[in-house]
Structures are given as C-alpha cells and as structure tokens.
C-alpha cells in the first residue's frame, strides 16, 4: 500500500544529478512511495528565466502546475527533489493562490496554450518533506539493515528548500532539523553544522568564479573543521557546486580539502542495504570511497575508468614526487577522473 505522488523530476535530476534520481528510484519501494511523473513537463526556469521575462517565469511554472492538475487522481501532492524546481513551483502556486493579479495573468497565459490551473489544487512539496513527514523516522529506522555507524555527516540544506518557505512547510528558515533527523535515523553521526542553510554560490560559478569559490570554501572549510566525513545534500545545484567545483576552489586557494558530497537518498539506500553502484555512488568528483570504506562499505575500484583513461604523453610534466612542489589540488582532481 504505497502512497502515490505526482513527481516533477526537473532537468538537473535527469542528468547532472542523475545519482539523486537513481538513488530515489532505488529506495522508493523501501519507503512505500509511488511516483507518477508529470507528463511532458518543462523546465522550471531555475534562477535564470525570471531574470529575462518576469511574467514568463510564472507562466513557465504555471504550465507544470496545470499539467499536474490534469493528473490529480488519488493524490494532489506534487513532489520535486530539486530545491530550485521546488521553490519555483511552490512560489507560483502560492502567488496564484494569494494574489488575484498573478492568478489571472498566469491563467490568461495558460489559456493561450489551452491550459488552466486552479490555484490551490496542487500541493507542492520537497522530497525531504515527504521523507521526513509522510514516510517518517520510524519507518526509516525499520528499513535500516546496515546502519551508518561511525560516519560523520554534515547535513547541508542550502537555501531554496527552507527559504522563503512561503507555505511554512519546514518551520525554520535558518536552522531546520528534518535532514539532521533523517540522517540520525540511518545511524550516522550528525554534526551540528552551523552553515547548514548557507548558500552554495548558486549561479555564481558561471558569472564570477571568484565569488563562487569563496562561498564554496566557507562551506567545505566549516564541514572540514567539524571533521565531517562528507556533506549530505538534497539539491542538485548544491551538489554540483560543492562537488564539481571543489577542485577549482582548492586550486584557487591553494588548499587541499577533500569533502565528498552525497545526496541524502544515496545514504538512505546504503543504510537500507542497496548496492552502492545502484545508488549512483562513485559518480561524484570528490571521491566518497575512503569515507565509506571507513564504515565498511566497499566500492569496486574504478577499473573501466582507469582503463579508458589514455596514458599521459611522456613529455607532459606531471606532479613530480621528488621535488618540493607546492600542492596543486587540481592535479588530484584530474587523477580522480
């Protein structure tokens, strides 16, 4: 008797955050969740569409809400795993419900495509909200077969899941607890991460990398100070910025942080006894293998990748162990690929 939800995957979850989607699909039966994709959904607009077309951004999400409404059958809850998708859907829904002008204009735009959305029909919620409130900690504890005992995790929420939280679903914009408690239920040691709702730098990696590096550094540095084995996130943008850009950040600051960043669904899958590969573990840039080996989770060596990697031309200079070279963390990143 699984519970049904309408599901909005979003562009990132289908690609750069594929491990997030794969791990969610792997655990959905464990937590009795049935996900029905919204048919022919379009991009949520992220933080960019609205910078060019103010009303267009609401019409863009309005179409997704209208499509979800057509599929309301046994459930009216629309779930998104990506925090940007979640906020864009939730914001348009809230504005349409609370502001007559927004409601009328978005519906007038939707009518041009033969669609309509009745404000209040769909309830937009984040995946973490579903896991914490609907599935619940008791059910999670019940499903744990391989507790994450000894794994120190920094729970990282980022921004858009808890702010502005127009419908007050998390109740605390700066110091939420849901992810902390889910991870604790898995048996992990959860650090009281002071920067849990600070910004991952959002789109700044694309606009001004130096600004982005500083925001990434603050987070990784803090997690490192608390001796976290890894950061655990619930947003594709946060994961991408902290994981894929960690090497560049290290290069910029001449630091050597090694802070893996996994999705909470990946850790749920591990604790539920799933195979790490099925959960997309190993697709991160900052290798989580040694952190997981500490708690007895073995990952196969990346044989194919090592084999596929072309031999370095002998003429090319490479980090030479014998010379007192300054630490170049970028080299490590290249190695990891």
């Amino acid at each position: 008797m699984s519970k049904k939800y309408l599901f909005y995957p979003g562009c990132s979850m289908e690609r750069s955050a594929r491990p997030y989607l794969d791990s969610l699909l792997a655990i959905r039966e464990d937590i009795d969740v049935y996900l029905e994709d919204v048919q022919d959904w379009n991009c949520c607009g992220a933080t960019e569409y609205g910078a060019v077309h103010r009303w267009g951004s609401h019409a863009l999400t309005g179409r997704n809400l209208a499509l979800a409404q057509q599929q309301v059958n046994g459930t009216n809850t629309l779930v998104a795993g990506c925090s940007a998708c979640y906020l864009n859907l939730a914001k348009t829904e809230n504005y349409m419900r609370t502001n007559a002008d927004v409601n009328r204009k978005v519906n007038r735009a939707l009518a041009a495509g033969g669609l309509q959305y009745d404000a209040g029909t769909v309830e937009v919620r984040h995946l973490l909200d579903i896991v914490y409130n609907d599935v619940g900690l008791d059910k999670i504890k019940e499903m744990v077969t391989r507790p994450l005992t000894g794994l120190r995790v920094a729970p990282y929420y980022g921004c858009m899941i808890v702010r502005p939280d127009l419908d007050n679903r998390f109740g605390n914009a700066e110091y939420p607890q849901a992810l902390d408690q889910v991870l604790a239920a898995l048996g992990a040691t959860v650090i009281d991460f002071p920067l849990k709702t600070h910004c991952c730098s959002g789109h700044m990696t694309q606009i001004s990398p130096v600004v982005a590096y500083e925001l990434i550094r603050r987070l990784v540095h803090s997690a490192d100070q608390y001796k976290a084995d890894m950061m655990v996130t619930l947003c594709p943008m946060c994961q991408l910025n902290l994981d894929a850009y960690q090497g560049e950040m290290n290069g910029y600051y001449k630091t050597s942080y090694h802070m893996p960043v996994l999705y909470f669904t990946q850790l749920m899958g591990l604790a539920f006894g799933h195979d790490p590969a099925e959960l997309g573990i190993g697709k991160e840039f900052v290798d989580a293998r040694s952190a997981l080996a500490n708690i007895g989770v073995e990952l196969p060596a990346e044989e194919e990748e090592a084999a596929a990697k072309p031999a370095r031309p002998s003429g090319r200079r490479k980090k030479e162990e014998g010379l007192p070279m300054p630490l170049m963390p970028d080299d490590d990143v290249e190695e990891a690929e």
Partner: protein
Amino acid sequence: MTGSAPATPRNFLEEVELGTPGDSRLLMCIQCGTCGGSCPSGADMNHTPRQLFAMIRADMREEVLTSNTPWYCVSCYYCMVRCPQDIHITDIMYTLKDMAIKSDFNEEKAGSDLAQSFVDYVENYGRSFEFGLATRQYLRHQPLSILKKASMGLGMLSKGRIDLTPHKIEKIDQLRAILEEAKSFDYVDQEVGP
C-alpha cells in the same frame, strides 16, 4: 470593479513595483540594512540591496541598472526572510535584471548572457541544457579556463552526468504560445479588484 487599469509609472520606483509580479512591498523599506548584512555575496556587490533601494527611490535609474548587485544576487532568500518589512527582495532583484537587459544600461554581461542562453534553450526545447549552457558561457566569459572546464566536462561525461544533445518536450508549441502571451504582460498593467 475588475478590469485592467493600465497604470503608467510616474517614476522609477513605480516602474520597479509594477514590473514585479505579486506584491513587492518595495515601498515599505525602512533602510535598516538587514538585507546587506545577511547577503553572502554582499561584499562583492557594487551596492547593498538597501543602498540600491534608496537609489531607486531617488530615481537613479541609470546607476541602479548598471550596478552588478542584481546579478550577484545568489537567490538565497536570506534577506527576504530576515527583512522586518517582508519585502520580496529577491523578486525585486529579478525585476532589476530584466529591466537592465531591456535598458541597455546593463554592464554585467556574464550574468545577462547566462540568463539569455538559458532562456534560449528553454524556449527552443522546453528544457534546460546544461552542456550547451556551460559551454557557451565558458567560451564567452571564462576562455582562459577552458581547458580546466573541458576536463570537468569529460568528467561529467564519463560519469554519465551530462547529455551532449538537448531533450525537446512534446508540446513545445504549446509552451511557446503560453510564454509569448505572458511576455505581453511585462510592465503594462497591474490589475486590481477581487
């Protein structure tokens, strides 16, 4: 009385208010500075949000629209939840980006090019396209780091985290018709009444 009474903005402040869907509450600003103090990228902004709002009231259109502040907004919403006046600061930043692009005052091309590329992909395919977006952006704005980015791109590819071709939704024409209609609402009217 329903109906749409076209409002003609009398000054820059009204123009910003009118251009922001929903209730921006911009008029309520008491210049307390909580926004700037809460902003993670505030130190790199030309003006804090508070300063920018004072400049909007002073009708300093060109100075506001050339500022890098809206583009350096990371949409973290810290300012908005801490604002004692509940001003929708992040929404206003989006409006200012939109106005900057339309005004020709915009000097923050890395920001506007990213947003415009994003819009182009959404309007052509209905989906975002990370590979194309990042490639266009890096070639134009971070050409010196292109080798590093190419290495990251190969990493993404080998890990199955990127597509080389965009995915198109089925009813792209429907989406385009909706967006076209929505664009006609920009800065034209603000409806009142129930």
